[in-house]
């Protein structure tokens, strides 16, 4: 993608480094990279395997002048990080890319073997020579895509999608594949369901570390001894606790980028929790994280007139 390479080179005149993607020669899919020089920028790519949300690196790099290549969904995280003062708008050059939806590479690999050749024809997929329906391997976040084009950018590369990428597959109305199942469960069954799911957790904290909005980074309340919010054992009880600490701390911050669920090595449907919370927040406060730089995070404010829950008596 010459256009992208040129844009990154141009951006590098103004910034220290640019966050983008390169092609991993071993697997042929994209992997996150940092471009420090124009020479390095030659390797930059953007395609439907660029699933990673690069905004996760911004808090650690705060204070440095950066460029970041961002899809529409990634840009929402950038917006939210700026609101939370974890990134400075004036330090950032956002290179927006038009996104036509992203593939869940891990899902493909787990089914067909790591490194299987992925040939994305745009309307269909060929995986190791076998043709597969593309929708089956779309990143789940694409099904709820709010905006395929970034909301904020300094430079734009590629073709504008002109709307949510998810329109390909029904737009943002498509819920989590497990939400209907959850809906049908009685409370005790829900508890058993989650207990079962979290029994697999190995507490690797990949969900936290890939989350752009888990910006406390190295010192996290999930692991502090004092206060002792969560025990140190690897078991369903503590894992569920730490995940709900995370959910709670991401209220009004989660942009639904899906990285936590993608990164989870044991397949816990973490986005089912996040989606439910995001829906509740939209319903209660009319707020969607990442919509606007001028927005006030919903948990940091209140409305005397509108917030009338619990006042019915």
């Amino acid at each position, binding site marked *: 993608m010459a256009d992208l390479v040129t844009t990154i080179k141009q951006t590098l005149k103004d910034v220290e480094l640019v966050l983008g993607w390169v092609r991993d020669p071993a697997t042929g899919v994209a992997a996150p990279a940092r471009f420090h020089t124009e020479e390095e920028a030659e390797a930059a790519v953007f395609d439907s395997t660029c699933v990673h949300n690069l905004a996760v690196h911004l808090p650690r790099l705060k204070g440095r002048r950066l460029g970041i290549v961002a899809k529409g969904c990634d840009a929402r995280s950038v917006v939210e990080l700026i609101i939370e003062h974890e990134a400075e708008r004036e330090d950032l050059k956002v290179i927006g890319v038009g996104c036509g939806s992203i593939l869940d590479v891990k899902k493909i690999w787990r089914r067909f073997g790591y490194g299987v050749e992925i040939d994305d024809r745009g309307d269909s997929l060929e995986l190791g020579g076998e043709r597969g329906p593309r929708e089956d391997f779309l990143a789940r976040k694409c099904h709820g895509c709010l905006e395929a084009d970034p909301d904020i950018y300094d430079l734009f590369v590629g073709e504008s999608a002109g709307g949510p990428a998810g329109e390909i597959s029904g737009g943002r109305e498509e819920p989590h594949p497990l939400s209907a199942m959850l809906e049908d469960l009685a409370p005790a069954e829900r508890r058993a369901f989650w207990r079962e799911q979290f029994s697999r957790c190995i507490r690797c904290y990949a969900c936290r570390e890939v989350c752009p909005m888990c910006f406390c980074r190295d010192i996290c309340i999930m692991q502090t001894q004092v206060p002792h919010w969560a025990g140190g054992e690897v078991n369903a009880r503590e894992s569920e*606790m730490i995940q709900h600490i995370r959910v709670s701390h991401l209220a009004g911050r989660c942009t639904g980028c899906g990285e936590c669920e993608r990164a989870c090595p044991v397949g816990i449907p973490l986005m089912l929790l996040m989606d439910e919370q995001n829906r509740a927040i939209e319903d209660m406060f009319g707020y969607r994280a990442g919509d606007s730089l001028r927005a006030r995070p919903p948990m940091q404010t209140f409305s005397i007139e509108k917030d009338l829950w619990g006042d019915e008596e």
Partner: protein
Amino acid sequence: MNGETDRADGGAVNATDADRADLKLVAFLCNWCSYAGADMAGTSRMLQPSQVRIIRLPCTGRMDPLLVLKAFQEGADGVLVSGCHPGDCHYNDGNYYARRRLELLKRMLAVRGIEPERFQYTWVSASEGARWADVVQAFTTDIESLGRLGATVAGGGGG
């Protein structure tokens, strides 16, 4: 609270089965309104259930959702939060912030399978001793009808 309240409860407990007596209920009360209201209910010798453990907070604005999560994890069967009526917060707006947090938490607890009745929040002023007695009785009755949260709880205390 005072001994009188306990004695009144003792009667209530004897009237129910042992399982009900085992219920662990936690109430987080703000210092300025609800705690004083509960105190008033006590000094007025109003009948109150005895399974409720009261934890006093400076303000419901201090009400970290994690306190509720932890209470359930440690084996609580129900959690009640009560603070000053909206507009009456000793710190002007602590309960307005709390209201957003608590309502969201309530909805998320339901996702986990914790019945909405198990987590309730309300407003009781310092002069509303009778209201406190009603609130805590209704809350306890709700939990009694649901029973123990059980070992499969979202982090129930394993017991």
